[in-house]
Structures are given as structure tokens and as C-alpha cells.
């Protein structure tokens, strides 16, 4: 029940949102339910510290036969950050998203995403994971296209098709894996693979299909093109939600998948993961530096940042996995906040083109500082969270003997800084170009809740930098659990 409640909360909201007609009540309920979700996720942290891995068997059917919900420290951390970001984005959306969209079910579908994301973080069964991916994707398809602007529909077509292809790969892989091993429970599969260690090549077609599916969802190097084509089209509150949660679910699944299955065949997979991570990192950051749209730059940076997590996964030591988890959390917070600031700029000026923007720091120093915090946290300046994230990744890389990749990460950091400085100079610092100054609508509506959300996220980023040690300790405990799949197997299947 402890874990099930995280599915129940969004589900109850979905039910109520269908039954209630008034948009105002739905908005209040959305805030209430996202708060509940946050509180519940916070309550999970001490429980998981005490019980290490929480397992719930749905319907009372024991593990390899029924559906299990499993949450170890890593899952719980992800659930907590998700709940935090989701709560703030819901508060933000009450002022950022226009009334027509809110009336047509904006909150309804964001809760659909929440349910899918929560479910994927807890899924203890491969097919169940697929189903939660679908729940998440269905809602995101609608959110991308909700409102029906021309640009939005163009973006949503690309988003829809590429993600459907990734689902196809994923479910085809699941089918092959089931045909070979006769089980879909993650713990059971991992145990069976350990027994079949000598003949793992038989499973490669299935594993590769699933791996490609996750890589498309997580926007890794050869499969990232859908992300920058679609993330800048929906309203800013929606792209912030996507940037903060959706690709990270793909990466979470990849980490889970790697630590439970792929590492048995590490000789092959480690190289693949390292190359894909390194190339995503480099290509994402170079592509970003050629863009002139606020949100497009940030979208390309998602790809580059995801690369850091994936190379850390490729190093595959305890320190590296600690770094990967820490970096993932940092990235969710910083990236979301950068998108929230972009949402404010969009609201004030009606455009996100860097060439015509300017003088925003003079307009509101608070928002300027908030952007500064999140952007330079992404670039990795101390004492913000990004510095410790990058530091941990680099250190673990050098310790594991991958100095070249670690140096590459350092080099990419420089380019990230360049892009962030570019946004900072163009949007906040430079004088607004004279010729475009008159056309912009002046927005007088209040934005205090938007500011509240962004302030809370900014505080979280700074706090994560200041209290990096206890958080890294927690991440280390999570990494130890990830490196020890037999513990996971024992908790899910029961002591053998």
C-alpha cells in the first residue's frame, strides 16, 4: 500500500477531474493532490532507509507470477524529486498556462504523466514498465498538441512517431525476451540471466531492441532528434515538465536495465554505453551552441546532460553510479528551473528568440538571478549542484581509468558554459534591440506563483550544492544497492 498510494493519488485526481466540471475547483484539487503526492514521497525516504527495498505484490500474487512494485533507494530518490518538481510545475501552471488549455484538461493530462512516471519508477516487471511508459506517453502526446497551434502540431507529429517507434522496439524486445526466458519479472529475469551466463548471446536481439527503445526515450546520441524538434513547441510549463521528467525516466530505466541485466555481458555493453554517452554529450552541446532559440538551446542541452549520466553508468564503479544518480537529480532540478525561467520570458515578451530579446535583468533582477543559478548550475560552477555532479563524474571516470572520456566531459562543460553565457548575455544583459522594442505586448497579469515555483527550485539547487555531502552519501547507498543485484532479487523473490 505504501507504494501503491503513489499511483492512487494521481488516479483519484483523474477520476475527480472527470466528474467535476468547474475549472477553478480542478485547479485547486490539482494543487492539493500534487501536495499529497509530495508528502507521500517524502514519507517514503525514512521508510526506505529503514527497510532498504520496499516491495509490494499486487493482488497478493507472489513475485514471478504477479506484478510487483519495487522501490529501492534510487527509485525513492527519483520519486521524491519527481513529486517535488511536479508540485512546483503544477503551481507554476496555474498562472503560466492559458485558461483555454486549463479548461481542456491541462491538469488532467499532467496527472496522467505523473501516474506514468511514478509507475515506471516503481515497476518491478518489464511489461509493467512498458505499460507505464505508455500511460506517460499517451498523456504527453496530448499535452504536446493541446491547444493546436500550427507549430505545436508540427512538433507533436515528430514526437508521436518517434516515440511510437521506440515503444515498438521496446515491446518487440520484451516479446523476444519472454520467449527465451519465460518471465518478465525484473528480479526473476536477472536471476535467470545469471544462470545462463555462458549463452548470453542468445538474448542479444531482445536486449538490443529494449536498449534502443530506452535510448530513444532517453534521447541518447543516434536517437535524439525527436527531442529538440518537439520540446520547444508546447507551452513552457509543459516543456518544463517534459524536460524535467520524461527523458529522465528513459535514463532511469536504462540504469536499472544495465545494473540488472546488461552488466552480465559487460565486455560488449560497457563500450556501447560509453560511446553513446560520450557522443550524446559532445553532439548535444555542439548542436546547442548553434541555436538561437532559448528553449531550443536548453533542449539540446538535455541531450548533452543525459550523456554525462550515461558515461557515468558506463564507468560502472560504485563512485560512478553515485555520480550518475547525483547528476540525474541535479539535472532534473536545474533543467526544469531553466525552462521555468524561459516560461517567464515567453510570458513577458511573447518570444524566445535570442536576437530580439534583451534587458530582462533590468526588468526583473530576481528572475535574472534565478536563471543565473540554474544555468550556471548546468554549466557546473561551484557552489551549485552541477559543480558537485560534474566533479563526481570526472573523479569516478579518472579513478576507473577512463581518463579520455573524463577529459571529454570537462571539455563539454566548457561548451555548456559558453551556451549558458550566450543566453545570459543575449536575454538578460544586452540592450534590447531598438527596432523590435515596440511590437511586444505588455503583460500585466500577476506572476507571483510562477516566481514562487522558480524560487523554490532555485533554493533546492543551491541547497543541493551546499549539502552535497549527505545527498551524495544517500546516492552512494543507492549505488551500492544497484551494484548488488542479488540483494534486489532476494527482496523481490524472497530468500531462496
Amino acid at each position: 500500500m505504501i507504494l501503491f498510494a503513489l499511483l492512487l493519488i494521481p488516479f483519484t485526481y483523474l477520476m475527480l477531474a472527470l466528474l467535476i466540471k468547474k475549472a477553478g475547483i480542478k485547479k485547486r484539487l490539482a494543487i492539493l493532490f500534487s501536495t499529497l503526492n509530495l508528502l507521500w514521497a517524502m514519507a517514503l525516504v525514512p521508510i526506505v532507509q529503514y527497510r532498504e527495498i520496499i516491495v509490494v505484490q499486487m493482488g497478493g500474487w507472489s513475485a514471478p507470477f504477479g506484478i510487483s512494485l519495487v522501490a529501492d533507494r534510487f527509485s525513492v530518490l527519483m520519486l521524491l524529486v519527481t513529486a517535488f518538481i511536479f508540485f512546483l510545475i503544477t503551481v507554476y501552471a496555474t498562472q503560466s498556462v492559458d485558461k483555454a488549455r486549463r479548461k481542456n484538461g491541462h491538469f488532467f493530462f499532467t496527472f496522467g504523466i505523473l501516474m506514468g512516471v511514478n509507475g515506471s519508477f516503481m515497476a518491478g516487471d518489464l511489461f509493467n514498465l512498458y505499460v507505464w511508459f505508455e500511460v506517460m506517453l499517451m498523456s504527453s502526446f496530448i499535452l504536446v498538441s493541446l491547444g493546436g497551434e500550427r507549430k505545436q502540431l508540427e512538433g507533436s507529429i515528430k514526437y508521436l512517431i518517434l516515440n511510437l517507434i521506440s515503444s515498438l522496439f521496446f515491446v518487440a524486445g520484451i516479446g523476444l525476451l519472454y520467449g527465451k526466458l519465460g518471465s518478465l519479472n525484473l528480479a526473476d529475469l536477472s536471476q535467470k540471466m545469471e544462470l545462463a551466463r555462458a549463452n548470453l548471446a542468445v538474448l542479444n536481439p531482445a536486449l538490443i531492441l529494449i536498449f534502443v527503445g530506452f535510448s530513444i526515450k532517453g534521447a541518447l546520441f543516434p536517437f535524439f532528434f525527436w527531442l529538440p524538434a518537439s520540446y520547444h513547441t508546447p507551452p513552457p510549463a509543459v516543456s518544463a515538465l517534459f524536460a524535467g521528467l520524461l527523458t529522465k525516466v528513459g535514463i532511469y530505466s536504462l540504469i536499472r536495465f544495465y545494473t540488472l541485466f546488461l552488466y552480465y555481458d559487460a565486455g560488449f555493453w560497457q563500450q556501447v554505453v560509453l560511446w553513446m554517452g560520450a557522443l550524446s554529450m559532445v553532439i548535444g552541446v555542439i548542436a546547442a551552441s548553434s541555436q538561437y532559440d532559448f528553449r531550443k538551446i536548453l533542449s539540446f542541452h538535455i541531450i548533452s546532460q543525459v550523456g554525462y549520466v550515461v558515461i557515468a553508468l558506463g564507468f560502472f564503479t560504485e563512485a560512478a553510479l553515485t555520480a550518475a544518480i547525483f547528476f540525474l537529480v541535479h539535472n532534473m532540478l536545474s533543467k526544469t528551473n531553466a525552462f521555468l525561467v524561459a516560461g517567464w520570458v515567453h510570458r513577458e515578451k511573447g518570444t524566445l528568440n535570442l536576437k530580439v530579446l534583451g534587458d530582462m535583468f533590468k526588468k526583473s533582477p530576481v528572475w535574472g538571478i534565478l536563471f543565473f543559478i540554474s544555468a550556471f548550475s548546468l554549466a557546473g560552477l561551484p557552489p551549485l549542484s552541477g559543480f558537485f555532479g560534474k566533479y563526481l563524474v570526472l573523479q569516478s571516470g579518472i579513478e576507473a581509468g577512463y581518463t579520455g572520456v573524463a577529459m571529454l566531459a570537462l571539455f563539454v562543460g566548457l561548451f555548456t558554459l559558453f551556451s549558458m553565457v550566450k543566453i545570459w548575455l543575449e536575454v538578460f544583459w544586452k540592450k534590447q534591440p531598438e527596432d523590435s522594442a515596440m511590437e511586444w505586448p505588455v503583460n500585466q497579469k500577476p506572476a507571483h506563483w510562477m516566481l514562487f515555483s522558480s524560487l523554490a527550485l532555485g533554493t533546492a539547487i543551491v541547497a543541493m550544492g551546499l549539502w552535497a555531502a549527505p545527498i551524495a552519501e544517500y546516492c552512494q547507498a543507492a549505488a551500492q544497492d544497484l551494484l548488488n543485484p542479488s540483494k534486489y532479487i532476494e527482496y523481490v523473490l524472497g530468500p531462496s
Partner: protein
Amino acid sequence: MNNIILEKIALLFLRGIALMSVFLLLRGHNSPGGGFIGAIVLAIGFIFYGIIFGSDRIERILYFNTRIWMGIGLGFVLLAAVWPVFLGHAPLTGLWYTGNWPLLGEIHLGTPLIFDTGIFIGVAGLILSVIITIMEVLKWNT
């Protein structure tokens, strides 16, 4: 459209199909059938009815908005998921009641039936809301 034979047949068809769908729903747990299939069959009846009478008449039969029906369906699912929790079982556990009733004989009733009823109502509501929207866009109200 004024064709009395067609109208009578459509009405009869709807009633027959509705009965059939409930039958499919009830036999669902151990035999082929179930809430999803039942709902699709029910929707077929409504589509025939709508093609002849227009979507306004479907809405009149439904009484509530389709959105509300979907909500009610989810409510049933929620009930079936949470009920076992209050009795100390894992969520979604099937709880069964077996009794000997006069006339009906021995019957088994359980929370899976509640769950399936929720699916039935929810899916039927969803399909009908799609159909009604399409009919309204096409202005199919003869």
C-alpha cells in the same frame, strides 16, 4: 431520416446489444468476455443507433455526459483496488463472496467484477465520447 422500420430495428438492435454486452461482462472472469469487450460491443449498438437518430439521441439515452461516465468507471476501478486494502490485503486482491441464494443457486461475486464493471463503464464512455465528438464535427444530427 423518417423510416419507421429502420428506426424500430435500430432500437431493437440497441436493446439486444446492450443485453449481450452485460452478458459478456458477467461471464468475463473465467470465460471469454469481460468489461473491455462488453464495452466495445455496447458501443457498436450505440453507433448504429447514432447513425440513424443522430448523436443528440445518444446523449439523451446516456443522461450524463460521457466524461461523467468515464469518471464513474474510474471510480469503480478505484473501489476495487482500494477495498482489499482496508481488510488488510494487498491492493487489487480479489475478494470473493460465495453464497446460496434462492432461485439463483450458488453464486460467486468478487471485487474483480467491480473492477470489470469499472472498465466496462469507462471504456464505453470513452468510445462514445469519441463517436459523439466525431458526429458533432460532421454535423450528423439528422
